[in-house]
């Protein structure tokens, strides 16, 4: 664990009001090492973003970490006060967000927004901080940074703004960078540039990265390890090689099938979609949360939450890989047509 950076143990994120409590993220564990990229994959609403916000200590007011713990460099950070967390945020752990168009303050120059971060965490004077800001802008590939440093966000394109966001995030040499769908809002060509930039800077700064995305094409490019989430739970967690070579969970298989392959010889092949939709958090099924949509679900799955099976570092939460699977009788009884992965004409 010398290389270990972040360790998330069995965390639970819930939203509470007077009347009810909704648990959105339930029993999630993973870790990130130095210089490594962990990709968190899942459909929107599966709790990916909340997981990252809980690491930052930035959950919305009504939400909180209701179980488990988060360790950063062997210190528990999930119970730290706002004041203590603010010393870590932007300094040791940084974050970039999905919407570069709205994530920068429109009334402040980009330079000011970088300088502010630098001066907050490091003992630099204004002039030195400005130098650092220019340096950072150059690092993220913005041309003539001496002039751009005084530009306002609206004067830059989306891709440029995301570069600025990265510059802000990296301005204090963080050890961990959390990127929440950093390229979703951008053009495909810009996406590639931004990902390339992040990879390059990761090597330079020996950072751990958590990349949250629903884009498996991106994952196959940059991930070292992958965590697949479904409805607030982990479904599969392993290295990139293992996952792409041998996806174990039916949901992962479904996701991989959803990627259209241009190289397929069979041109007439139909697009795969996973039928049905994610269960809503206030009506979570008792058993496996994917059972409702799973093509191979059995009675067992509907009524009992699956255990996590660890096959040589390849973790999967599915009954299929347990001894119980074979002993269970008449498994397909309750599975209706709609739960199958269906072919839809493209």
């Amino acid at each position, binding site marked *: 664990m010398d290389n270990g950076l972040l360790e998330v143990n069995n965390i639970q994120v819930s939203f509470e009001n007077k009347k009810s409590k909704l648990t959105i993220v339930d029993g999630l564990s993973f870790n990130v090492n130095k210089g490594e990229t962990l990709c968190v994959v899942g459909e929107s609403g599966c709790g990916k973003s909340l997981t990252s916000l809980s690491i930052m200590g930035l959950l919305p007011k009504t939400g909180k970490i209701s179980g488990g713990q988060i360790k950063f460099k062997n210190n528990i950070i999930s119970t730290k006060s706002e004041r203590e967390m603010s010393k870590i945020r932007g300094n040791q752990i940084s974050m970039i*967000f999905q919407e570069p168009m709205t994530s920068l303050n429109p009334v402040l120059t980009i330079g000011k927004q970088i300088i502010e971060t630098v001066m907050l965490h490091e003992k630099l004077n204004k002039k030195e901080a400005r130098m650092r800001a220019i340096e950072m802008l150059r690092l993220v590939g913005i041309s003539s940074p001496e002039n751009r440093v005084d530009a306002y966000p609206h004067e830059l394109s989306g891709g440029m703004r995301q570069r600025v966001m990265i510059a802000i995030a990296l301005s204090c040499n963080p050890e961990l960078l959390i990127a929440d769908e950093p390229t979703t809002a951008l053009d495909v060509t810009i996406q590639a540039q931004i990902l390339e930039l992040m990879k390059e800077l990761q090597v330079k700064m020996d950072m751990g990265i958590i990349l949250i995305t629903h884009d498996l094409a991106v994952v196959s490019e940059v991930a070292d390890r992958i965590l697949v989430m479904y409805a607030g739970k982990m479904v599969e967690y392993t290295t990139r090689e293992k996952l792409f070579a041998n996806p174990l969970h039916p949901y992962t298989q479904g996701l991989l099938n959803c990627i259209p392959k241009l190289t397929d010889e069979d041109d007439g092949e139909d697009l795969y979609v996973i039928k049905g939709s994610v269960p809503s958090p206030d009506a979570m099924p008792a058993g496996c949360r994917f059972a409702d949509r799973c093509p191979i679900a059995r009675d067992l799955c509907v009524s009992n939450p699956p255990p996590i099976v660890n096959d040589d570092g390849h973790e999967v939460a599915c009954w299929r890989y347990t001894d119980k699977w074979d002993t269970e009788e008449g498994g397909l009884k309750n599975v209706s047509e709609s739960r199958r992965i269906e072919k839809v004409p493209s």
Partner: protein
Amino acid sequence: MARFIVRRLGLMFVILLLVSMIIFSLVHITPGDPALMMLGQEATPEALEALRERLGLNLPLYEQYLNWVGGVIQGDLGNSIKDNTPVLSILLQKLPVTIQLTVFAFVIALMIAIPAGILSATKKGTIWDYAGTSFALSGVSIPPFFLGILLIFIFSITLGWLPPSGYVEPWVDLKQSILLMIMPAIAIGIRLSAEITRMLRSSMLEVLGADYIRTAYSKGLLGKTVIVGHALRNALIPVVTIGGLQLATFFGGAVITETIFAVPGLGRLVIDGILTRDFPVVQGAVLLMAVVVVIVNFVVDILYSILDPRIKLTGGQS
């Protein structure tokens, strides 16, 4: 920027022209004889004729208007009917008093509204929010003259803390001058304060949900810095425009407040002019108020673009 200002200046000129026409027609186009209106029913025919002659009321309307506007441009606003002093010098004498009241009232209004607006937005749904919202609602619902009377009743008559009315120049007796200004400034400033609280609360709520606020927290900034350094600046942008628009309402409040508290400013001048039918004075004072409103709104437009760099000053539609 330059093109925008030029265009905006042109627009301002047109509006001022229309303003002058409205003021002129108020007295001259309405049915009835202006001279009779000014002197009242019991005036003698000779007096009426003399006044008509003096004011040029026997000339054709357009000529009267041109004469008046020509005079106004040269700073000649006519003379008061009451004592024949030039209207301009009366205005210049009253203006500082109203400016003093305005500054006091704005300071008080902002001192209440900014904390109240921020608190009720950041602590939405708590007792702070209810207090702020109730203040805003009461403030826009209480008539300034009732508030003025209420203040006199509480602070002068019951508690005896403040002098009930009157005015002293600050350089004559600073302490007394300030004491006399407190109640009028509150009476007139509360409404403005309430409007700003309301605006600021809603724009603050909108801003606090913005992505860049989350970014600010993710940098490690603490709550106070985020609110003052990032949220307030954005939330104030719509408030500034309202502040400009409120100035007109504010002058209306000055008429009432200056009457209640016997403050010899522009507002008091207008109402005295109306009650004594001294129309040149009324015209002059109303013109001055309208001009100030138009100019302030022009400045607010420029300020708006400085506060919000996204606004490009290319001179588009108003």
